[in-house]
């Protein structure tokens, strides 16, 4: 079985604005592709024909690529400073996902959804969860990678408590839209798209570190966080660094009673990337299995229709079969418990 956990239809202005409603639909929102860093070639980012047509997605994913279930999480418009606009964009996005993707029975019910949260507005985030959580087709919540304050901060704690209770993991994805976010690097804006691309994983690492050091997992034992833009390999080496400093400075954070690396299996997941482990371009070597713990921590995700999409059929060819199975479906089923019942309903439509 093949579960693609990282599929991102693009909600263009013409569909988004009618759903946002007045007065916000009279205004403007950041461009969905981001205007700060223009990619070297427009075709690099995405195939323009593949932005938001469920039929096209179904043809490529279910037809050509052999995907059984695609978990979709549209990227939105970046960090939004106005809490009302943030809430309106999230509500519009979730409504669009439910109506346009999850309810289209002709695709065999093979699209699962993510509840998009307006994290700059915690109350609205909780309202969004309440609105959609009863719908079993939503199997995770999705939050933007860019934040004003890292996800370890107590501000977000009420959100994490609720989603953990509901069995919904939290997936973090970078919006291409830049909005009002902090600069991409600790030393200011970067110059080229390539630099932005290379530096992106470190934002997930900051979230990972602060979720651990702030004791979020100690207080919300059921919480699972899925990092969409960092490789498991980077996660592993940064956990080593974190645990070295934890041994030296844990007096500052005594609630962290476990070695930071030990938070990985119960709480951390990484969407697959071509740079997981040692890649020779076409396949990922099994060299680091047992060290990076990719066999437990990686969920296959193609990033379709974005430009860095990877092909599940070949990339893990060298991995032992049972481990391939875990990465291609088993780990996703474990991290997203709602997927199992979703699959049952899929095999017996209606």
């Amino acid at each position: 079985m093949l579960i693609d956990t990282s599929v991102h239809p693009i909600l263009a202005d013409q569909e988004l604005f009618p759903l946002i409603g007045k007065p916000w639909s009279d205004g403007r929102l950041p461009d969905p592709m981001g205007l700060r860093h223009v990619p070297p070639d427009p075709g690099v980012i995405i195939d323009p024909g593949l932005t938001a047509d469920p039929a096209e997605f179904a043809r490529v994913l279910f037809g050509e690529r052999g995907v059984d279930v695609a978990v979709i999480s549209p990227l939105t418009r970046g960090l939004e400073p106005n809490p009302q606009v943030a809430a309106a964009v999230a509500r519009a996005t979730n409504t669009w996902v439910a109506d346009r993707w999850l309810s289209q029975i002709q695709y065999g019910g093979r699209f699962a959804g993510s509840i998009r949260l307006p994290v700059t507005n915690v109350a609205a985030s909780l309202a969004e969860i309440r609105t959609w959580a009863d719908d079993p087709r939503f199997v995770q919540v999705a939050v933007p990678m860019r934040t004003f304050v890292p996800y370890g901060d107590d501000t977000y704690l009420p959100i994490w408590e609720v989603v953990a209770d509901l069995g919904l993991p939290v997936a973090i994805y970078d919006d291409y839209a830049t909005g009002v976010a902090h600069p991409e690097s600790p030393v200011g804006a970067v110059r080229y798209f390539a630099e932005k691309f290379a530096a992106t994983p470190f934002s997930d690492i900051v979230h990972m570190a602060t979720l651990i050091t702030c004791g979020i997992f100690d207080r919300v034992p059921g919480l699972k966080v899925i990092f969409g833009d960092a490789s498991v390999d980077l996660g592993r080496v940064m956990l080593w660094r974190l645990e070295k400093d934890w041994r030296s400075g844990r007096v500052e954070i005594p609630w962290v009673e476990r070695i930071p690396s030990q938070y990985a299996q119960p709480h951390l997941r990484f969407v697959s990337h071509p740079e997981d482990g040692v890649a020779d371009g076409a396949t990922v070597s099994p060299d680091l299995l047992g060290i990076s713990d990719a066999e437990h921590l990686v969920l296959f995700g193609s990033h379709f229709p974005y430009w860095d999409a990877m092909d599940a059929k070949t990339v893990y060819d060298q991995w032992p079969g049972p481990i391939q199975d875990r990465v291609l479906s088993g780990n996703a089923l474990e991290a997203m418990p709602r997927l199992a019942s979703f699959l049952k309903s899929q095999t017996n439509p209606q």
Partner: protein
Amino acid sequence: MTAETLADQNQEVAVSIVDCDVHVEFQNRDAMLQYMPEPWRSRLGSRRGTSQRESYGPLWNARRLDSYGPSGLPAGSEPDLVHKQLLSEAAVDFAIVLRHARGTVDPDLNAALCRASNMWLASTWLDQWSAGGRFFGSISIPVDNVPAAVEEIEHWAGHPGFKQVVLGHYSERPLGYPQYDPIWAAAARHRLPVAMHFTTNAADSIGQTPVGRYPHHVDYHSIAFPVTYAAHLMSWICAGTFDRLPDFRVVMVEGGFLWHRPVLARLAQQWPKLAGEIPAARSDPMSYVRDHVRFTTQPVEESETPGQVARYLELADAANILMFSSDYPHYDYDDPQRALPPDLDRDMHDRIMSRNAIEFYDLPATRPVSELDRA
């Protein structure tokens, strides 16, 4: 053979430990002010500092508690104690000294502080306290004052004791931005590597990340340096700085090592699609690291299972691009006898401990026996 008999015979010993990150300090503020010109000397007066880091310090002492002498002078300021702990007890053959003058909000004052620090270093640790030439220096430059930084490099470039330039990891923009190019050109002209060592200056946006600020010392100290060093490294690579300046070399000190492979691998994976926009000319971005960049070990990555780190070190080309450092006398000092995983390949171990640095800094492969050597 004991050190004594060897010394009698004027013998040489092979250099087996080069420590690429050692810190020394003025014994007091007056010692520093002696090197400051007016009006700064009067203006600074007795104020302790205008450039101290005010956040994110460790809760307990940032220096080794055993690196203070009975006099209570600053750690790393007493030559006898430094010689004993570093050259005798840790058996370091050569030490690369990094004293970066912390910057204030005033670029002119920063230039004067750097000059004072370099003058002091030249007359102390590179001269009377050098234990027979076992300490090498780094030219401290003010990165927010590019003309002064270039002038500082030119001023010291012929000095045999200075082996590199040193700057902090913060700047207003990633260091591949063109306004910084004259600094790299000056360093390359004199074949001086540029060492980046984390330093916080008064004007820096300390603890800033793309997603907000670190809440604790633990996360700041473990995550901030790789994130920032990576931004500069990507900036130099993508801006084509290494293409334009074939002699420009960089040492990333105390910023971690293992992170670089996954980050470079990510860039390399998509390089064909990305390279159209950027001046970098090579077909493999990893090759810039091999040819231009070195990393130092401390704080060396550790795991409950040391063999795991050893495996990652192999894959990250540690044998060619990693150099030992202890960070003496800071609290997170890594001892040369224990820093590397015990099951590391012997040849790789030797390259990391000394041979890579000997090649990179063009250091002698032997040194005279000294009375500081332990019998």
